[in-house]
């Protein structure tokens, strides 16, 4: 009896909350030709009967804009006959199909809103190789991922790659290898800016010198996406990653990455990065973190450093310019951004000493093109190196 009474009270209160005045009784979505309505409602964190609360609605709009699916979001209210409201959400969808290019994986295509479910799909065909240049069919790579699957806080990742004749370049070894890699991951968005993900990676590697070996690894990633401060001038974001090898190969790899952006005056900015690496145990070469590549220490040989403990700090000062080389007054007006870059790495090898520090300086130029950012950079560390990237 008690349960029945409690249930009745609950139903009464619930209906009160739905039909209380000043509530949003339904949502009308306009402009979504691809993204499903329920995905939009999930992204907005809409609850039927929620009050007209500007804080929550502003957060809902920000969530839709930061999903990457829409270029413009507009909200309005339509009054109903009983002092409640219908929320009208007008969205403009972004183009969600784009071409991809990757030196390792080949050419591909990305669909960022597969079937309108907020799922990203990528497919690559490995059909060329540089140095020596060769056109050949060398495998494929396919993947599905979502930061907020169906607009919910759950993330997932599925990837399968079969890549042949991959070049391995390091100071004392050059060879080709075949790689079969499967990655599965599940995650959860703790809030709009923070997420956690657990992954399982399986790799099957064959090289000319060994028959083949397999890697089974479990990893944990915690990531805080860029968070803007109140005065619109600073962003901070960071990630922690730990991977542990299981079965036949025991190893642990860990990375910590913290980045900070600060707009000094106008659009002139500095951007700093602190990156720490731990390579512990018998880390397979495909899982080991090296310094000396495009993503970290530049101006040195490719994969020159693979020490158990390494730290890298990078500082970039950029001055955005317009197409006529005037000082840019907004990101939309920026075409060129020259950057002055300095790097200092600490590589623990043997005894601690000055030789453990590896500096480099560089000049970069970001060029905005309709296809993305083209970023040539020239660095001097151990030697002069030119880097070309498309982001």
């Amino acid at each position, binding site marked *: 009896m008690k349960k029945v009474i409690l249930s009745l009270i609950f139903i009464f209160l619930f209906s009160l909350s739905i039909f209380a005045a000043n509530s949003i009784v339904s949502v009308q979505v306009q402009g979504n030709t691809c993204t499903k309505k329920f995905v939009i409602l999930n992204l907005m964190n809409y609850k039927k009967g929620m009050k007209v609360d500007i804080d929550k609605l502003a957060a809902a709009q920000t969530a839709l804009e930061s999903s990457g699916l829409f270029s413009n979001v*507009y909200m309005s209210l339509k009054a109903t006959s009983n002092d409640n409201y219908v929320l009208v959400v007008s969205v403009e969808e972004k183009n969600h199909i784009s071409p991809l290019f990757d030196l390792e994986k080949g050419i591909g295509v990305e669909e960022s809103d597969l079937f309108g479910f907020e799922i990203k799909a990528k497919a690559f065909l490995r059909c060329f190789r540089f140095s020596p240049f060769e056109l050949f069919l060398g495998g494929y790579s396919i993947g599905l991922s979502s930061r907020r699957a169906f607009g919910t806080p759950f993330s997932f990742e599925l990837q399968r790659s079969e890549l042949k004749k991959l070049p391995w370049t390091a100071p004392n070894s050059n060879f080709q290898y075949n790689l079969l890699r499967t990655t599965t991951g599940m995650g959860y968005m703790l809030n709009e800016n923070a997420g956690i993900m657990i992954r399982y990676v399986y790799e099957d590697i064959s090289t000319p010198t060994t028959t083949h070996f397999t890697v089974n690894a479990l990893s944990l990633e915690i990531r805080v996406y860029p968070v803007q401060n109140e005065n619109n*001038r600073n962003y901070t974001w960071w990630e922690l990653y730990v991977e542990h090898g299981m079965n036949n190969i025991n190893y642990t790899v860990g990375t910590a990455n913290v980045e900070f952006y600060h707009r000094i*005056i*106008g659009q002139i900015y500095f951007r700093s990065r602190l990156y720490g690496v731990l390579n512990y145990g018998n880390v397979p070469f495909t899982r080991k973190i090296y310094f000396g590549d495009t993503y970290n220490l530049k101006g040195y040989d490719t994969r020159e450093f693979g020490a158990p403990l390494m730290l890298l700090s990078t500082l970039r000062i950029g001055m955005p310019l317009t197409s006529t080389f005037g000082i840019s*007054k*907004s990101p*939309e007006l920026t075409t060129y951004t020259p950057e002055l870059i300095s790097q200092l790495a600490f590589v623990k090898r043997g005894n601690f000493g000055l030789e453990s520090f590896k500096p480099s300086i560089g000049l970069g130029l970001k060029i905005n093109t309709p296809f993305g950012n083209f970023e040539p950079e020239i660095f001097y560390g151990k030697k002069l190196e030119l880097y070309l990237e498309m982001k």
Partner: protein
Amino acid sequence: MKRSFLVLFMIILLVTTLTFANVTLVFWHSMSDYQKPALDRLVSEFNATHPNIHVVAIYEGNYDQTVTKLKAAFLSGNTPDVVQLNIEHLRIFTANHQLLDLSKFISEDPSVKSDFINSFWKTVVINGKPYALPFNISCLMLFYNKDLFRKAGLDPNKPPKTWKEMEKIAKKLTIRAPNGRIIQYGLFWGVSGEDTAFYQFEPLIWQNGGRIFNSSMTKCLVDQPPAVGALKTWKSWFKEGISPANMNLQEGIQAFMMGKIAMGPMTSGGIRYALDNLPWDLGVAMLPSHKATVTTLGGGSLAILSNVSPKKQKAAWEFIKWMTNTKNTLYWYENTGYLPVRKSALNSLQIKIIWKRFPQLKPAVEAIPYARPRPVNVDIIEIRHILFNAIEEVRHGIKTPEEAFKDAAQKIDKILKSEETK
């Protein structure tokens, strides 16, 4: 090679678009810098959602330059179809019937007129007829550096409300080095001398209970005590050392940006630019009052030229109506700081979301009831330069406030009289 392909591709795209769009409208505007991307995006969205109309937006320089170019275009017969004109410049072209009277379209679509904010609508009505739609309307606001307020022990959320408070706060915010040199000024009431000349000085006359012209626009009243009093007060700010005397407007804005000046009047149309570029925490407030609470209403409107074909007129009306609809006026407001022009926008949910994101945009909307349109006249550009030169003579100590405004009023009265005899 790639560049050539890209250019070729763009030309083919443009030609195809122009061929298949039934009507192509040439739209001249004065939005440069940070406002241009927002305007371009609106135009691009209009083109995407109106397959039968294609608008080509062309930047033609500032408001004054657009007037010169449009006059020249009428002489050469090579005019645009739609033009963004400063609301005070409309009369220059309506005098020769060069702008389309929009009464016909308004009568077919009466809800458009009733949704525009009344004081904004009045700025586009000349002799009872609407010649444009208000688009980028702004009012003059007090911009202040909240960080400097904090450093001086002042409450950053309590900007000055009166001239006296402003002078008192400006004194506190003026800092001298041990050698006596001023290293930070509390105030800079800079007045523009080029485009929109005299803009920042007008509210001082009104706030002091004065007027710049009589109601029939036949006599200049700056030689009267309220205007002369305002000029004396303005000069006293330089004399007392709370405002730099040797800076022009651009130099003053640079110094303000660098945190060397704490307060100053600026257009609400620059709020987003300031937020995106200043290296410190910006505060925006209503201009301080004196005998009256007033600010200046300025900005631009969208007009259709009277010489375009009926088909183009219809398309142009569709375009200017779309540019100023509730959704787009709010987009424009959020991305520039120009005021929303529709009543429906002021009552919308979206504006409350915008205020949540950019609280500095709210005071400009609150200032609308106190915003007074600038005086208009066919020779207004020349008249404003006379007024600006007068206050410059006072700033440089060439003339007293009485002499400067007396001479200016005489010159302006001559112009107004010659207009009567035309």
